[in-house]
């Protein structure tokens, strides 16, 4: 089993938190992983991405070869489009529809969503709205993880354990908030994909 995904977003949107939860769940499931992340200058409000590779065998490259990526998980719609040439032809894009506008030439959101809809396998999630329903606009990243969890080769129990473990140091309230965000994101994805 091999599964490669790219996490995409803007510095500060919490893609490293998503990465940590997936890493941990992979470990619980006995899988190997390599996860390349971005630190330093680019983290200051710039485009950031993390290449995350899961396998039950050895993993060589820390970077995903172009054409091998199975899933792009984007917490921001413009960022969803930045790494498309990594995606294999049958790959999936799970993207938030909530724009993070911090550049003057940010394109019209409708154009971005149209471009995502042109990809054969895609899922667009209103992460901002669902995060607020869960209790805070700040948990959009975990809403997206919940939505993408349907595509990950990871057992739900492992993801939930990893999620709890990651947020536990910040208290039970924060754990519950993120569990809710995850659950609502996953529900939304099931609804859109018509899975019961």
């Amino acid at each position: 089993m091999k599964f490669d995904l790219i996490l995409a977003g803007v510095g500060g949107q919490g893609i490293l938190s998503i990465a940590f939860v997936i890493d941990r769940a992979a470990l619980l499931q006995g899988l190997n992983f390599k996860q390349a992340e971005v630190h330093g200058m680019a983290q200051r409000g710039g485009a950031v991405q993390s290449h995350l590779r899961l396998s039950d065998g050895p993993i060589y490259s820390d970077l995903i070869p172009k054409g091998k990526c199975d899933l792009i998980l984007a917490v921001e719609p413009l960022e969803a489009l930045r790494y498309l040439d990594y995606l294999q032809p049958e790959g999936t894009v799970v993207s938030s529809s909530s724009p993070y506008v911090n550049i003057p030439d940010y394109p019209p959101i409708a154009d971005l969503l149209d471009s995502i809809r042109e990809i054969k396998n895609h899922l667009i999630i209103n992460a901002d709205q669902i995060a607020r329903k869960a209790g805070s606009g700040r948990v959009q990243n975990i809403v997206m993880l919940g939505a993408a969890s349907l595509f990950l080769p990871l057992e739900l129990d492992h993801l939930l354990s990893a999620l709890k473990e990651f947020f536990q140091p910040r208290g039970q309230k924060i754990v519950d908030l993120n569990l809710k965000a995850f659950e609502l994101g996953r529900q939304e994805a099931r609804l859109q994909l018509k899975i019961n």
Partner: protein
Amino acid sequence: MEKFVALGDEAVALGAIHAGLAAAYSYPGTPASEVMEFLIRASQEKGFVARWSVNEKVALEQALGVSFAGKRALVSMKHVGLNVAADPFINSSLTGANGGLVVVVADDPSMHSSQNEQDSRFYAQFAQIFCFEPSSHQEAYEMTRQAFDLSEAVGLPVMIRLVTRLAHSRSSIFPREPVSPKSLPTGERSHWTLLPINARRRFQVVLNKQEELRRLSEESPFNQLKLAGRSSPLGIIASGIAANYVLENWPDLESKPSFLKISTYPLPEKLIRKLMDEVDTVLVVEEGYPFIERNLRGLMGIPGKRIRGKLSGDLPLSGELSPDHVRQALGLKALARLPKLSSPIASRPPQLCQGCPHADTFLVLKEALKDFPQAMVFSDIGCYTLGYFPPYSAIDTCVCMGASIGMAKGAADVGYHPSIAVIGDSTFGHSGLTPLLEAARTNTKMTVIILDNGTVAMTGGQMSYASGEYLVKMVEGLGVNREHLRLIEPLPRNLEANAALIKEEINYPGLSVIIASRECIQEARKKKRGQE
């Protein structure tokens, strides 16, 4: 022991702890910062010394002191940090190491967060010391442990060369039983006192050790040679993480080439000769400069052999490698994939945070400089270098740590006015004191603005030595005229008053220092979160 999840940087740090580390020093810099971050977290429990230093030179000198005292020391830095530490680094090969001395340097090919992509393997060669180049987290851990033993065995410092993609990649490792810290008797003063009479002798010692270093490299199990026999005329030499890119593409190669993975320097000559004897063409795949390739090719090349790599144009000379570059160099067809969008995607460069104090200082500076369109603003290295971009477009230079003040003084010396330096508090502590001392003694007609946000912000908020009251006292102590040492608080409501103050100081025909002091917004947020 249990599986342990670590960044490449952290695997090195854990290796050092398990090798019986006594003390570690560093200055923050991407992609090396997480070595020390990890060590500081672990040091409280384990009882070794782990500290941020004022700069890389001081860090290396402290590590050298630890080594002379018979204990194991690590110093970590980004590649350009080794330029700052180059003086003690090169000389430490002559003094030799007593307790194991390991110099960890993280290169940044592609300049993700740096001003150049220099390759530290040249520094290891320059100092004539042994160098490990890990390709995986496990190797980073194992090599660091071995580096301490090797340093003590040969009596020289040892380098670990990392690159961004390993330093900042996370994976799991299997640690081994740690060894306890030990103490060696202190060494010989004639080794450490590099008077010409001693240094000549010591240099000969270093030269005499080269054969042993080469032998150790040739025998190292981290170098792996797999000969394909005469079935393939192609050989591949790959080092560090570049070897991973070869292995990534390996299953798709119809005829398997001979393969040498190089993980240690000096170059394992015997292994290279063995490979070269079997092949007609060799492809050299390495991250950074064409170090191996250039050594192999020399001036004249090798008669009858084709050497391919960066110099031949098969791989790019700049930027980091990827599995895709290597795939192409191996002659494999690109994998099927989705095309990029036809229209370009708006780029999203990094920028100053909302509410950043530097942003306010730059807006004030722009306001003040409306009357001085010819002003040159010499800037330095930190978050504030982002002031280059609109809407600020406020700075004209970024060269190396502390360069702003020296450059502004040079321009002022030849009559340029206004000549303005902009430097952060930590950068000032790192390398700004000495040029300011000179400017103060000569009362040069220039304006220095120190942006004091109280932290090393860009690398994640490490401690700054030259901040707050301490900073004011330091500047005064260097001999800056108290009347022209001014403090401002960069807030939007102070814009007019602050701009007027800056204009006043620009017009003063001598040295002025303005300290713009307000806490980094990220650090303020962190504190607030901690109190919640």
